[in-house]
C-alpha cells in the first residue's frame, strides 16, 4: 500500500490543536521548577512545622497530638521570654543604630570631594565577607574580661576597671550589637549608596538655587527619595536580625545564662539539644507570624507596592 499524505484539511486543525495545548501548558511547564522548589523547601516544611507545632515529637517514633500545649508552654517558658527580649534588643539595635549609621556613611561617601572612595567602600564592606567563626574568635579575644585587648586599652589609657563584655548580661547584649554594627553597617551602606547614586543631581542643584542648605537638602530630597531603598533595607534588617543566630551562638553561646540567647538559638536548643521538636516548631511558627506581621506593617507604612498600582 502506498503511503499517502493525509489531507491538509485534517493535519492543520490537529497541528493547531497541538500548538494551542502546548501554548496553554507552556507557562506551567516553565513555572514548574519554581513551584517544585517552593513546595519542597518552603511550603512543605512550613506546613510540616505547623503540624509539628501541634504535636510532641522527639525526632524519632510517633507523634502525639498535644493541641496548643507547645504554644502555651512558650508563654510560660522563662528561656523563651529571655530569647524574645534579647531578640527585640538586637532588632532595635540594628534598626536604630546600624541603619542610621549605614545611611550616614553612604551619604558621606556619596558627597563630592571625598577621596579614596573605593578604599573606604571596600573597607566598610569587608566585615560581611569574613567568616563568622573568625569574627567570633576575634571578638572573643578582643572583649574577654581578663585578657581582652579592649579592657587592656580601657584600663591602661583611661584607668577604667575591667568591663565584663561577655560575662555580664547587659554587656553581652551590647557586645553582640557592637558586632552587628561592625559587621552589617558597611553591607547596608552599599544599598543606600546605590539609592543615593540614583537621585538626580538636578534636584540638589535646584534646591541649592532655592537656598536650601545641606541639612534641608538631606531631609527634603535625600530621605524622601530613598524611601523605597529604606523600606527594603528595614525589612531585610528586621527579618535578618529577628533570625539572628551566628553572632550570639559563636560569641557567647547565648550566655551568660540566657542573657544573649536569641529566638533561633532557643529553637536550635529545643530541637537539637533537647529533642523537643514540637516546642521548637511552635517557636518557629510564632517567630514567623510576628516577623510577617511587622513586615506587613512596615510595608504598609512605607507604601511598598502602592506606586506600582
Amino acid at each position: 500500500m502506498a503511503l499517502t499524505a493525509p489531507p491538509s484539511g485534517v493535519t492543520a486543525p490537529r497541528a493547531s490543536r497541538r500548538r494551542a495545548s502546548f501554548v496553554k501548558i507552556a507557562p506551567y511547564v516553565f513555572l514548574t521548577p519554581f513551584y517544585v522548589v517552593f513546595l519542597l523547601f518552603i511550603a512543605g516544611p512550613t506546613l510540616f512545622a505547623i503540624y509539628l507545632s501541634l504535636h510532641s515529637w522527639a525526632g524519632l517514633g510517633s507523634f502525639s497530638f498535644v493541641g496548643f500545649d507547645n504554644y502555651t508552654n512558650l508563654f510560660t517558658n522563662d528561656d523563651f521570654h529571655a530569647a524574645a527580649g534579647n531578640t527585640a534588643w538586637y532588632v532595635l539595635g540594628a534598626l536604630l543604630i546600624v541603619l542610621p549609621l549605614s545611611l550616614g556613611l553612604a551619604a558621606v561617601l556619596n558627597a563630592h570631594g571625598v577621596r579614596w572612595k573605593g578604599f573606604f567602600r571596600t573597607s566598610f564592606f569587608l566585615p560581611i565577607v569574613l567568616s563568622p567563626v573568625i569574627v567570633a574568635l576575634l571578638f572573643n579575644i578582643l572583649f574577654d574580661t581578663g585578657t581582652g585587648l579592649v579592657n587592656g586599652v580601657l584600663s591602661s589609657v583611661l584607668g577604667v576597671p575591667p568591663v565584663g563584655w561577655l560575662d555580664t548580661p547587659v554587656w553581652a547584649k551590647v557586645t553582640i550589637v557592637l558586632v552587628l554594627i561592625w559587621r552589617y553597617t558597611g553591607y547596608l551602606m552599599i544599598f543606600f549608596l546605590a539609592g543615593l547614586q540614583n537621585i538626580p543631581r538636578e534636584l540638589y542643584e535646584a534646591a541649592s538655587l532655592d537656598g536650601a542648605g545641606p541639612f534641608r537638602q538631606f531631609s527634603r530630597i535625600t530621605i524622601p527619595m530613598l524611601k523605597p531603598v529604606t523600606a527594603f533595607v528595614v525589612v531585610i534588617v528586621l527579618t535578618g536580625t529577628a533570625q539572628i543566630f551566628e553572632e550570639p551562638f559563636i560569641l557567647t553561646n547565648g550566655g551568660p545564662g540566657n542573657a544573649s540567647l536569641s529566638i533561633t538559638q532557643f529553637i536550635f536548643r529545643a530541637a537539637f539539644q533537647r529533642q523537643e521538636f514540637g516546642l521548637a516548631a511552635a517557636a518557629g511558627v510564632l517567630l514567623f507570624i510576628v516577623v510577617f506581621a511587622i513586615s506587613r506593617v512596615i510595608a504598609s507604612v512605607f507604601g511598598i507596592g502602592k506606586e506600582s498600582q
Partner: protein
Amino acid sequence: MNSSQSNPALSRRTFIGMASAAAMVPLLASCAPTTSGVASQESGEVTLNIWSNAPDFTKFFASRAEGLSESGPYDYTIEQLQSDAGDITTKALAAYAANGALPSLLGIEIAQFSRFMKNNIAGEALADLTDEMGAPRDAFYESRVQPYVSDGAIYAMESQFPLVTLYQRTDLYEQLQIPQADTWDDYIKIGGEIFAKHGTSLGVIANDDPTWFGMLLQQRGGHYFDEDGNLAIDSPEAVEVLQLLVDGANNGAFTVVSDFFGGPGTSLLKQNKVAAYFMPDWFNTFILQANAPEQSGLWKLAPLPLFAGGGHTTSVWGGTGFAVSKDIPERDAAIALLSDAYGTEDGQVDRFTQTGYLPTLKSAWDSPTVLEKTDPYLGGQRVMELYATLAPDAPTQYQSENWALLSTELGGAITAALTGRKTPAEAIKDAAASTESQSA
C-alpha cells in the same frame, strides 16, 4: 467539540495539587516509622560506617578490625564520618528518623546521650549491649557504664575514663613557693593569698559553663540527677560547691573567663598567669599539649584537694560511648568489633597504647603496659600510679533526658552567683525550679 474540550488543559488548581502532592511525598516518607527486624549478616565481607567526634576512635577501630578480620568470621572494611559531638548526634538522629544511611558504630559524647533517652529513642535506634559487651557489667568501672544506661539497658560502651586531677605548673609552684593544700577550703585560701601577692591563679573556670561546677559536685558526692533520673541538683552539696567557686573567683584563686576552650582560655594559659587547673585526663592532650607545647616538662599531676564534708578523691567529666545501630545488616559484625576492642583486656590495653584513653575495664589496670606508662609532657611522671589509686573511687554520673536543659539552667545560675546577682543557694534553687517547670 473544540480542542480544549478534547484535550482538557491542566487547570491551575490541578497543577498546584499535583505539585503539592509531589512535594509532600518525600516529607511524609521521611516521617515514616523505621523498619525493624533486619537480619544481621553472620560472616563474610562487611563494611562498617563509624561515625564519631574524633579521628582517634576510627583509627583504633580500624586497627582492631584488621586483626579481627584474620581471626573472626568477618572481613571488615572501615569507613568513617567525623564531625563535632553535637553535629554527629544530630546527623545520626536525622538518619534514624529518615531510615537513611545509618552508622554501624556511633560515637555518642556523654552529654549527648540524654538526647537518645527522650521517648526511648535509644531503644528504637540502638542495639541493647547489656549482654554483649565482651565482659560482664561488673568487670567495668560502673562510673563508665551507668552514663549510657536508659530504661535499664546499656546502649553504648565508653571509650575513656576521664579522671579529674590537679594539673600543677611545677616551675611556678617552686618559684612562688605555693604550698600543697589538703582540702578545697585551704586551696581557696592559699589561692587568694598567691593571687594577692603575685597575680597568679590556681585555677580557671568559665563564667557560664557548668563543667567545673559539675566536676566538683560529683567529687563532693552530689549529682545533677539521681539513679532514677529525678532532679537532684537542689542539694546542700550543690550549694557548697557553687559557694566554693564564688569564693575562689572573688579572691582570685580562680580566674573567670568567658570561653575556657577558646581564645581567652588559651591566651591565659600562655601568659603564665595560671599555676594550676583542675581538669580531666583529656586536658593534657587536647588543651595543654595542643596549645602550649613550649610548656612541656613544666606540668605534673596531683590528686584533687578533698572536701572536708566528704565525697570522693576524684571526679570524672566527659567521655564518648560507642553504640551500634539496631536495624542494620552489619549489626552483629559491629558488636563483634566493639566487644573485641572495648570489652577485652587486650583491646583496652591496645586502646590505651594507641590513643592514651584510660581503660574502663578493671583488669586492664593490672597490665604492666598500662601501669608503667610515663608522660614526657608531664616531666616523665608515672601518671598511672596516681590514676590507679583514683579510678576505684570515681563517682558515677546519672543521666536524664533533661540533662541539656539543666546544664543550660546551671550556666545561668553560675553566672548569677559569680556576678553576685544571686546567692549560690538562690541560684541553685532557681535553676532547679526552672528545670522542673520546663521538663514537666
